[in-house]
C-alpha cells in the first residue's frame, strides 16, 4: 500500500514539483536534482504526510529546497575567487547551467526574456508568481504551501507583477508580448 500511495502522489505531483523548481532555478539539471530530493523526502515522510495536505507539503519542500539551492549558488559565486601564483585574485568561472553562446543569443527570445525576468525576482515573490501565473494554483493552495495568509500571497503576487512589468516594459511591442 505504501508503494501504491507513493506512486499515486508521484503521478499527481511530479510535474508540479519539477515545473516549480525549473522556473525558480532556470536550469533543467538543477530542477531535476531538486525534484529528486523532494521525492526522496516524500518517501521517507510518507506516513506522516496527510492526504489532504500532500500538495501543500510537496510545494513547501520544493520551495525550501529551491531557496537552499539559490543560497548555495550565491555562496559559491562569492567564494569562487581564487588566488593565482602572483597573489592576485581572480574570479573562477563557474560551470553554467548548460548554456552555450548560441543559447545566449536565443535569450533575447520572448519566453527566455520572461524566464529571466521571473528568475530575477526576490525568492519569496518568485515562488508566488510561479505558483500563480505559471502553475495556475489557487490562492488557498499557495497560502497553504508557503504558510502565509492569503492576503500576503496577494501582496507578493501584485508586487511581483509590477516588478515584471517594469522589467518587461521595454519589450512591449516586440515578440516578448505575444
Amino acid at each position: 500500500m505504501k508503494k501504491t500511495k507513493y506512486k499515486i502522489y508521484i503521478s499527481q505531483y511530479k510535474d508540479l514539483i519539477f515545473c516549480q523548481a525549473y522556473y525558480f532555478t532556470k536550469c533543467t539539471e538543477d530542477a531535476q536534482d531538486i525534484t529528486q530530493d523532494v521525492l526522496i523526502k516524500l518517501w521517507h515522510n510518507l506516513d506522516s504526510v496527510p492526504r489532504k495536505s500532500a500538495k501543500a507539503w510537496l510545494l513547501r519542500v520544493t520551495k525550501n529546497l529551491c531557496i537552499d539551492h539559490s543560497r548555495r549558488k550565491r555562496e559559491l559565486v562569492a567564494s569562487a575567487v581564487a588566488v593565482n601564483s602572483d597573489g592576485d585574485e581572480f574570479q573562477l568561472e563557474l560551470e553554467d547551467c548548460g548554456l552555450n553562446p548560441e543559447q545566449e543569443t536565443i535569450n533575447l527570445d520572448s519566453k527566455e526574456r520572461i524566464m529571466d525576468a521571473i528568475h530575477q525576482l526576490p525568492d519569496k515573490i518568485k515562488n508566488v508568481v510561479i505558483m500563480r501565473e505559471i502553475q495556475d494554483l489557487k490562492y488557498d493552495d499557495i497560502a497553504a504551501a508557503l504558510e502565509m495568509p492569503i492576503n500576503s500571497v496577494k501582496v507578493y503576487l501584485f508586487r511581483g507583477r509590477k516588478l515584471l512589468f517594469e522589467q518587461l516594459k521595454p519589450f512591449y511591442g516586440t515578440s516578448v508580448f505575444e
Partner: protein
Amino acid sequence: MDCTICNNLMDDYFDGHLSHKKRKQVTGHLTTCQGCSEFFRKYENMLKSIRNVEIKKCPDEVVDSVFDIINIDDKFSRRKSVFDRINEFLFLYSRQLGIAGAAVTVFLFVFLITSQFDKTTHVQQQYTTQDVEQATDQVKLALAYFNQVTSRTEEIIEKEILHQQVVRPMKSSIRTALKPLINGG
C-alpha cells in the same frame, strides 16, 4: 473614479475579483482615459505572455532514478496494469467511496425496515370510523354505476333482440300481406 484608484484595482480586475459595480466603474474609466487604457492593455498582454509559458513536465527518468535510490523494484515509466489502475482509483476516491457505501447501506437498511413494516396495521391507524363509513357509501355508489351501465346495456341488447326477432319479422309479414293490395289496387 480617478487613475490612482483605477490602477490600484487593476490586479483584482484581471483576477476577476471585483464586484460587478466596481468592475463597471473601472471599465467606465478605461473608456474615457487613454493613459489608463493603454497601461491596462500592456499589463494584460504581459500577464497573458507569462501565463502562456510552457508547463514543464518531469522526465520519467528522474522518477526511475528515485526508485533506484530508495530500492523500489519497478520502473515508473512502464505502463500501468489494470491492477495498478484499480488501486489508484480506490486510493484517490476512498473517501467518496466510503461515503457512497455508507449512504447505500443506510438506504438499504431503512428500505428493508419500511418494506417489512406492516402497512395494513399502520394504515388502519390512519382511518377513522367516518372514513370507513364514507368508503362504504362510495363502494355502494361504485356498484350503482356498475348497475347503471349493465342495465343500460341489457336494455339496448333487449331492444335489438326485440327488433331482430319481433319487430322486423312483423314488419316483413305486414308488407307481405299488404303487397297484393298495393299491386292490385
